[in-house]
């Protein structure tokens, strides 16, 4: 079901006209009310009035996560605190958390986007939504909650944790939709099976999962174990929270971006130059309706591509692919941008191979050399050499075909890959540049 027919199926021309008008208003307001943006614009030599078309957006400076941290906690707010009705914050696993604010209108915008997202994922007024996203500073729980109420569905604010109680609720309340992180839902499936509960006997039809990257393989696993159709939802608190983009359950192929509220761009993370549709690069968002916390050309550090092809669901909003990596991890090998996550998905898609790997980059005779070390687990192992050599060849070929870079694949003993604080060290770059 399409929740917001007018905006979600609007002809592109009309949509772009609305985008430009909203962008110009946002720029004027940000310039007038946020000292950080005024300073950035002045340094870049642009004024809000210089932006006369959507194409002119490229002249604006970027905003980074560091900029938000530098203005901790409320320095980026564009309204006085007495009109801020909600505050969320990111976890800040790597440094200071980033704090975001919402006016009453922002909360309403977000609820609308989440109502749209839940509807795109298959929810209707009559559904019962089991919301296992965490409630708190994290935007997942409350984001889904407000969206579900706006849609008119019944929401169970179960939040994360206490898995056994969640399973009892699933059996007794009969929820038809589940929202959670993909890893939590797989954990839930495991505990359910330990308790002898079969999802076949529950009432779930659709699941809307996000807040962390997941692969197509995980989707298949979730759909098989939970007997439901699974869609991906994307968002980040700096932009608004979940609901920035969502897959439709009809196509399950790319997430429709709420372009009437956010302008998305893809840039080359090295040069900062915008890239055309279809090319893979860093995702950039500019909010065009938010009041309390406008973000202008915000660098998400997420790697994806935008697909403008029409969708079978009828939405005219462009779709972004599953996030395939983070710019922080990017390696440039012989001029090709390579993300460890791309190698990981190649490994996951190769039979019997587990994604325990390490990338080593060396410079030999002025050429970059990529070595992919893959741990040999019990599934992969064979008492004869030939199948092992064939696996090496197969991985090499798959990497070449999907990423376009030549790599040497080397099988290694398990647990030879260094781990620091329990996390595997994925990249060793020995190049002295």
């Amino acid at each position, binding site marked *: 079901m399409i929740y917001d027919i007018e905006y979600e199926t609007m002809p592109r021309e009309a949509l772009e006209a609305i985008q430009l008008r909203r962008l110009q208003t946002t720029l004027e307001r940000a310039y007038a009310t946020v000292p950080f943006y005024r300073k950035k614009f002045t340094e870049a030599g642009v004024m809000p009035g210089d932006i006369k078309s959507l194409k002119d957006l490229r002249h604006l400076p970027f905003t980074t996560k560091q900029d938000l941290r530098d203005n901790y906690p409320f320095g980026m707010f564009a309204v006085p605190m007495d009109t801020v009705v909600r505050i969320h914050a990111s976890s800040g696993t790597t440094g200071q958390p980033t704090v975001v604010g919402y006016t009453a209108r922002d909360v309403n915008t977000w609820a609308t986007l989440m109502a749209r997202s839940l509807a795109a994922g298959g929810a209707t007024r009559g559904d019962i939504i089991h919301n296992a996203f965490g409630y708190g500073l994290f935007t997942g729980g409350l984001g889904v909650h407000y969206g579900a109420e706006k849609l008119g569905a019944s929401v169970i604010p179960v939040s994360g944790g206490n898995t056994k109680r969640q399973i009892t609720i699933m059996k007794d309340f009969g929820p038809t939709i589940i929202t959670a992180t993909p890893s939590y839902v797989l954990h839930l499936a495991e505990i359910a099976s330990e308790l002898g509960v079969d999802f076949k006997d529950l009432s779930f039809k659709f699941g809307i999962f996000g807040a962390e990257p997941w692969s197509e393989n995980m989707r298949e696993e979730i759909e098989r174990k939970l007997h439901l159709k699974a869609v991906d939802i994307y968002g980040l608190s700096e932009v608004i929270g979940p609901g920035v983009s969502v897959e439709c359950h009809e196509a399950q192929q790319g997430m429709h971006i709420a372009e009437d509220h956010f302008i998305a761009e893809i840039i080359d993370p090295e040069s900062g130059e915008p890239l055309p549709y279809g090319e893979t690069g860093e995702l950039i968002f500019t909010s065009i309706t938010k009041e309390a916390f406008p973000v202008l050309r915000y660098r998400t550090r997420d790697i994806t591509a935008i697909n403008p092809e029409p969708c079978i669901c009828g939405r005219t909003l462009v779709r972004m692919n599953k996030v395939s990596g983070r710019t922080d991890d990017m390696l440039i090998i012989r001029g090709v941008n390579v993300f460890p996550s791309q190698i990981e998905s190649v490994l996951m898609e190769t039979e019997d191979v587990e994604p325990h790997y390490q990338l080593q980059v060396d410079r030999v005779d002025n050429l970059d050399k990529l070595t992919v070390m893959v741990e*040999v*687990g*019990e599934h992969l*192992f*064979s*008492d*004869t*050499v030939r199948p*092992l*050599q064939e696996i*090496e060849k197969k991985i090499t070929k798959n990497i070449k075909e999907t990423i376009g870079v030549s790599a040497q694949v*080397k*099988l*290694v*003993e*398990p*647990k*030879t890959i260094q781990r620091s604080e329990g996390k595997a060290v994925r990249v060793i770059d020995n190049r002295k540049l």
Partner: protein
Amino acid sequence: MRAEQISIFLENKSGRLAEVTRILSENKINIRALSVADTSDFGVLRLIVDDNERASRALKESGFTVGKTNVVAVEVPDQPGGLYNILTILQNGNVNVEYMYAFVQQSGSNAVMIFRFDHTDDALKLLQDNGVTVIEGRRLYTL
């Protein structure tokens, strides 16, 4: 009539084979036969030991990847053409030998070879039909 062999994945770097033998010796496990197949990067070590369970547990605990394979121990008459005759029987019966290696101990006056076949059951039947003596696993470990 099968025997069980354990195999271990080894990186091609010095000390790995010694590490395996050290772990086995610490666990008082006897190596009865051994062969290594290797490439420039890695090797596969195959072992017949007197206690497969204990050996593979000890090796796994030390972080090695361990596999188990069914192999066939065959008595080879200690005379010219002894091995040739057996290989001819197998070839005529369309059974492929993946690899083979010698067992340390003799069985009486006969040599013992360990065979890994592509189709173990077919090979066993073929050998028995042709009067070749196959040594049972239990006896093999204590030869």
